[in-house]
């Protein structure tokens, strides 16, 4: 038994992701795995931080993808340990295969699946609701409304998971993950168990016949969980008798609570927090339908609670159309909905301003910008498939036609090749994928492209980090989540191992040389098969790469500049600005990284390196 009490009762500022990590640590999680994805990325590093600081025996690792993270953590649970896996909602799509089966087989040690949703979406491909995935898998899900509650729910989740031998999902949303709150640290009283395998092939290797038995058992577990008191709905204002009620979950409940207090609605209408949206507590469903005439359900992002209340004529929510069916439920939307439901006049607020302002761009000096520029130069009329990461911003540069999901650049390139081949058209096809994404789900697609005899150029944008999500290490870095050395993989070895005959490495900062390399790859692809070029240069915002960035130069715009703005509009370097007075480009020295790629980009050759005596 490890007993570590915080030094004093101080409240510290913690994000929701840190609170979730703290909850895992406080409750004796022995294995935590993840693959980075906004808004869940900071959970694992916080687990790593505390386990390191407190010298706790926790296995904390980034996995190659969410499916493998899930399977690894799940095995730890089968062996009796408390474990957890964290990911973003689309990561759960990748891990959905083991998720569905793990529900049937159940767990030994407590197993928490943290799947963070992103209503909005702020930084995601979809607004999908992981709670719907939990319902689909028949797994209970808890929906915290604040960072503090997220931490507190970890204890509930582990108890629930162990009592019913079932995986439990914690579903935070962006506003919980990236919310911050003052939180009092609780003591860590963790019993770290010894791993044991209870050999039971009928369960852990169940054939279809046994799966039916497991399915029936799961249904029994769900019935019991729908009566599990600690996760039951909580009434905010028990003294209120009303014919109408509001049910809310997640951060929507936090908004509802505040709006109800500000507007006085708290004195008129029963307000419930649904802690466990699935399975909804059976007795609660009965009581709610008996006690109230009308029920408003406020939840993100899909109608999970609403679906489980069968009396449609009494229920208003996202499914009934009373609440907008897409987009984040911002508090001003919720306020309007609550007032409409309660028959109170709306607060007059100005029209929300249209989103606008400066759009995201690749950073000044980003090596991806050079790679995309080279790709357009080498293959001006190609089909460009791309992938998920910072480099999706290459779309601004006109160097991306498609982005579907993690790893799809390669399968789509393959598909476009065959689609056009059938029409007798042989176009250049260029796929771009980041290094982390390549490991995540590019390798299987690359093997497939080789055996399908597809012809395209694949550029692996290797900046030695998972940049978009906060510079987590990739399998090529040889650094684990705690910063310690670990075995590493070389992208070129993996590419060659996939059966690719052309694999070369180039530095995109050497723009003319890199364009030449791409053309060679293009010629190979036309004749023989998939050609891979690894564009290798470290990310400039990655703190680990600072020591290698020594090749910086000072630049100036000479009188040759005719103000065409190609460097600003086509190359889109944030350090290039337009000087209205002199009608020419100027370099913002605060932003310029000194990569010097623009020297080769300017059509007039106006950008020069500052000579020693200037």
């Amino acid at each position, binding site marked *: 038994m490890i007993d570590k009490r915080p030094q004093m009762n101080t409240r*510290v500022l913690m994000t929701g992701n840190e609170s979730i990590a703290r909850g895992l640590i406080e409750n004796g999680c022995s294995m935590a795995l993840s693959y980075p994805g906004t808004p869940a*990325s900071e959970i694992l590093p916080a687990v790593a931080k505390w386990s390191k600081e407190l010298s706790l025996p926790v296995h904390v690792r980034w996995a190659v993808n969410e499916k493998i993270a899930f399977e690894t953590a799940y095995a730890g649970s089968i062996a009796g340990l408390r474990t957890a896996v964290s990911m973003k909602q689309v990561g759960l799509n990748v891990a959905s295969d083991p998720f569905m089966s793990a529900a049937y087989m159940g767990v030994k040690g407590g197993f928490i699946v943290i799947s963070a949703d992103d209503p909005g979406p702020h930084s995601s491909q979809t607004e999908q609701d992981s709670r719907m995935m939990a319902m689909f898998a028949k797994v209970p899900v808890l929906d915290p409304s*604040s960072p503090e509650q997220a931490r507190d729910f970890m204890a509930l989740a582990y108890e629930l998971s162990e009592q019913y031998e079932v995986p439990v999902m914690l579903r935070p949303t962006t506003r919980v993950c*990236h*919310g*911050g709150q003052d939180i009092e640290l609780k003591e860590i009283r963790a019993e770290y168990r010894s791993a044991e395998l209870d050999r039971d092939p009928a369960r852990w290797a169940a054939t279809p016949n046994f799966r039916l038995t497991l399915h029936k058992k799961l249904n029994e577990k769900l019935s019991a969980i729908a009566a599990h008191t600690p996760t039951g709905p909580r009434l905010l204002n028990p003294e209120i008798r009303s014919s109408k009620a509001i049910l809310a979950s997640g951060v929507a409940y936090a908004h509802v609570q505040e709006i109800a207090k500000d507007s006085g609605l708290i004195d008129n209408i029963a307000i419930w927090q649904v802690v466990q949206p699935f399975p909804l507590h059976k007795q609660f469903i009965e009581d709610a339908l008996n006690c109230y005439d009308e029920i408003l359900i406020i939840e993100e992002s899909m109608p999970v609670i609403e679906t489980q209340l069968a009396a449609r004529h009494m229920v208003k929510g996202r499914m009934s159309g009373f609440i907008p069916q897409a987009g984040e439920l911002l508090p001003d939307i919720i306020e309007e909905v609550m007032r409409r439901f309660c028959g109170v006049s709306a607060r007059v607020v100005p029209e929300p*301003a249209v989103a606008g302002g400066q759009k995201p761009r690749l950073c000044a000096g980003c090596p991806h910008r050079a790679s995309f520029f080279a790709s357009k130069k080498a293959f001006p009329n190609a089909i460009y498939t791309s992938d998920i990461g*910072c480099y999706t911003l290459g779309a601004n540069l006109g160097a991306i036609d498609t982005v579907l999901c993690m790893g799809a650049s390669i399968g789509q390139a393959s598909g476009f090749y065959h689609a056009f081949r059938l029409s007798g058209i042989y176009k250049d096809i260029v796929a771009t994928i980041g290094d982390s994404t390549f490991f995540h789900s590019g390798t299987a697609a690359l093997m497939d492209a080789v055996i399908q005899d597809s012809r395209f150029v694949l550029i692996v944008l290797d900046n030695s980090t998972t940049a978009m999500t906060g510079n987590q290490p990739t399998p090529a870095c040889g650094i684990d989540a705690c910063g310690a050395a670990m075995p590493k993989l070389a992208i070129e070895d993996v590419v060659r191992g996939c059966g690719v005959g052309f694999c070369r490495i180039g530095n995109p900062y050497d723009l003319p040389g890199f364009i030449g390399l791409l053309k060679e790859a293009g010629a190979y692809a036309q004749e023989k098969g998939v050609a891979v070029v690894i564009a290798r240069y470290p990310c400039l915002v990655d703190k680990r790469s600072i020591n290698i960035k020594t090749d910086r130069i000072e630049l100036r715009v000479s009188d040759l500049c005719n103000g065409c703005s190609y460097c600003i509009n086509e190359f889109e370097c944030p350090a290039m600005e337009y000087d209205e007075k002199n009608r020419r480009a100027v370099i913002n020295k605060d932003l310029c990284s000194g990569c010097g790629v623009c020297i080769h980009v300017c059509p007039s050759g106006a950008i020069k390196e500052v000579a020693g005596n200037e």
Partner: protein
Amino acid sequence: MSNTPERQQIFLSGVGGQGILFITRLLAETAIYRGYRVLTAETHGMAQRGGVVVSHLKVGAFSSPLIRPCMADILILLKRDNLGQHGIYLRPGGSVIVNSPSNIEGAELFRMDASAAAREIGQPKSMNLVLAGFAVSVLNNNDRMLFCSPDDIRTVLHKKLSGRGKILVDALSAFNQGVCCGERKNNG
């Protein structure tokens, strides 16, 4: 809801890379240091690559992490272009602090060219702290209620960056640069 030091809503807005997260957390930690409850909401992900980013900071008894339109007591704009987009969050009688090189016609606000001031002290990337110093000082000096004083922030900076040597010294000097400017400034 009236504005009191015990209950304040502060909306911060800028673009990715300006260090908005750092000053949001600094203000939040100062609120905790002063004994207040605090809620924040941050922007992460794609927008951090130079796009528009906002932070919500609520000091006192709140449950929602987000500020509704017309409810912010204070608007801190690291980029003046965002005024059009985010001005609607300010409540009537609230205060606006803005980083801008030139005067903004027709608007009652506290303006400072924090970018230039940061460059002057050789720390172009510390514009965020300069503006934070300006905001805290100008609000205190113009009888606009704020939950903390410049000294509170300095104390928290010392705690937050203890043992970080030059980083702490630079942070304090950037913050003080803003405070000085705020002490000279009247509304307008």
